[in-house]
């Protein structure tokens, strides 16, 4: 998986709370493979109207934020469906980091798997950063994972992230390779479990 150490770029504020993964990637694109260009349909129904024309009011359509690398969101960003393709869409569009006061549980797990950082700050800080960006849209933001900082203009904020997720992002660890190191432990667990909980293994038909 991809590493994340730091990212500097335009940062797009999206103020909607409970922005769910159905909004990030509408369900009708779930049958797409990544090769079909899933980044193009990121936030599709928020970004485009029924005729496929851009909605000028959606922040990601504004000139300064079109090439954003960072999104500043509101509470419970990425709640809802477990679709990992929502993270593929963000990544393939060019987003490397989402900053928000809280995240949907499955979404932030999926983000780590794809090298996308989910950085947690307070409601007030998110509000403040959004305000600064709305005043000065071209402001570049730098997010650094090692030190857990966000630099926006002359302000520096500290963000929270689960320490395990932080290490995984910094190192780009592959889960499966890691798990395979414990093959013997898994086998021993299964053998004991099959004796003690024989009922838990379904009959083969």
């Amino acid at each position, binding site marked *: 998986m991809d590493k994340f150490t730091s990212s500097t770029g335009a940062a797009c504020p999206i103020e909607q709370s409970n922005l769910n993964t159905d909004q990030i990637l509408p369900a009708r694109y779930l049958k797409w493979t990544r090769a079909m260009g899933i980044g193009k349909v990121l936030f599709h129904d928020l970004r485009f109207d029924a005729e496929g024309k851009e909605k000028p009011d959606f922040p990601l359509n504004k000139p300064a934020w079109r090439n954003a690398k960072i999104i500043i969101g509101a509470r419970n960003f990425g709640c809802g469906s477990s679709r990992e393709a929502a993270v593929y869409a963000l990544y393939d569009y060019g987003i490397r980091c989402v900053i928000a006061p*809280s995240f949907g549980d499955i979404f932030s797990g999926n983000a780590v798997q794809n090298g996308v950082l989910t950085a947690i700050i307070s409601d007030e800080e998110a509000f403040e950063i959004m305000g600064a960006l709305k005043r000065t849209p071209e402001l570049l933001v730098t997010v650094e994972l090692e030190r857990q900082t966000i630099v926006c203009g002359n302000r520096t904020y500290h963000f929270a992230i689960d320490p395990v997720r932080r290490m995984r992002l910094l190192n780009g660890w592959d889960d*499966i390779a890691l798990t395979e190191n414990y093959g013997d432990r898994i086998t021993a667990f299964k053998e004991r479990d099959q004796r003690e909980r024989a009922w838990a293994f379904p009959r083969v038909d």
Partner: protein
Amino acid sequence: MLWSSSMTEPQTIIDKLWNAHEILRRDDGESLLWVDRHYVHEGSFHAFAKLTERGVRVAEPGLTFGVADHYVPTRGSRHDIADPEIARMVRQVEDNTAKFGIKLFGIDDPRQGIVHVVGPEQGLTLPGLLIVCGDSHTSTHGALGAYAFGIGASEVAHVLMTQTIWQKKPKRMRLTIDGATAPGISAKDIILAVIAQIGADGANGCALEFAGSAIRALSIEGRLTLCNMSIEAGARCGMVAPDAAAIAYLQGRPYAPKGAKFDQAVEAWSKLITDDGAIFDRDISLDAKTIAPIVTWGTSPQDALPIDASVPDPACEANAERAKYLRDALDYMGIAPGKKLSEIAIDRVFIGSCTNARIEDLRAAAAVLAGRISKVPGLVSAGSTVVKRLAEEEGLDRIFRDAGLEWGESGCSMCVGINGDIVAPGERCASTTNRNFRGRQGPGARTHLMSPAMVAAAAVNGHLADVRPLLAGRKT
């Protein structure tokens, strides 16, 4: 013994389930957990592609079960699927499961249905199991006392390759609901009331145990509805301690243990309760008798109110951010501020989904619709083909058809709209599903969530309505 607590301090059911599946814990706090059951569906293709890419096999093909549910047609031919993309999705899950030696309940199988209906129905979902699926509503299976949660495609691939998953132990939360609910109140009303109270992120990342006399009084099907929607409060999983009702529900189901193994299982399950004095990270309660029939008015399941209320008026909201949230939601929903819920006219109804399409749900809707006519068109799609057959034996299909509703095949259908069953742009649908997100039932669709009986009441009236007057003198 696996979840005995004699030597240690009192444990919650969550602790017991966790301990029974922990293979190892790393110094950093992540644990490797054994997965007892893994369900896959058409959407799992990303994960299968990862296996093919690495050239590896499935570690335990006997512990993964597949269904075709998200893309299967519910109307017209199930065989000549007109849309080639949808046909490809259904074929792909057949090919992938065949290639990796996984049992599939495919489109022609009499056991086919929505994954979260099929698992419990077939006795694959059992108390004490750790269950995962690449679908957020996997929380449903906790209703039988399983530790069940949704995962993403990378994790699905990991489970397929290793039969394990890395997790950090979640916070433990208990929601106790004591007392008796009023007549006409269902599990759907309870869970909508809970989400309205604690918010769409009120249980974020928590394992959530439902307890109390009102929960114990629910049937297993009601508990499945309850746990299904615990994800809509942000919970990683929901669960109810298995009791005599759970045991009775499982006995004799096709994949449930039989004979001596069943007895052993029952003995293990009987210990699966929260010990007296066990500590939760969060412990809250709700009084059952305060719960009224509830509908949603906005674009998040937390936007829920009793049917006799009016939608909020942003002009009366002091908090500017909240006022904007209300304005945006009402604007999308096309509802005037302050309008009475019972005056909101609907264009169609949908009875279906893993939330509310089991046999008791269909009976509850039919009890209201019997001898009455729906003022709007609508679709009824049973949660599984087994449920569909049973409903037909009971004559429920006739009641729905006579009321003017369509009786379809089983699948996810209009819950997510990806098989082509969609609500047209701007149309308003009273729905038994779990998400009223913008565009969830189709681009521009407006969804009001409620119980099956309340959807039936909306159908009969042509607008959102209290079901209770319609139940007067009827057996439910």
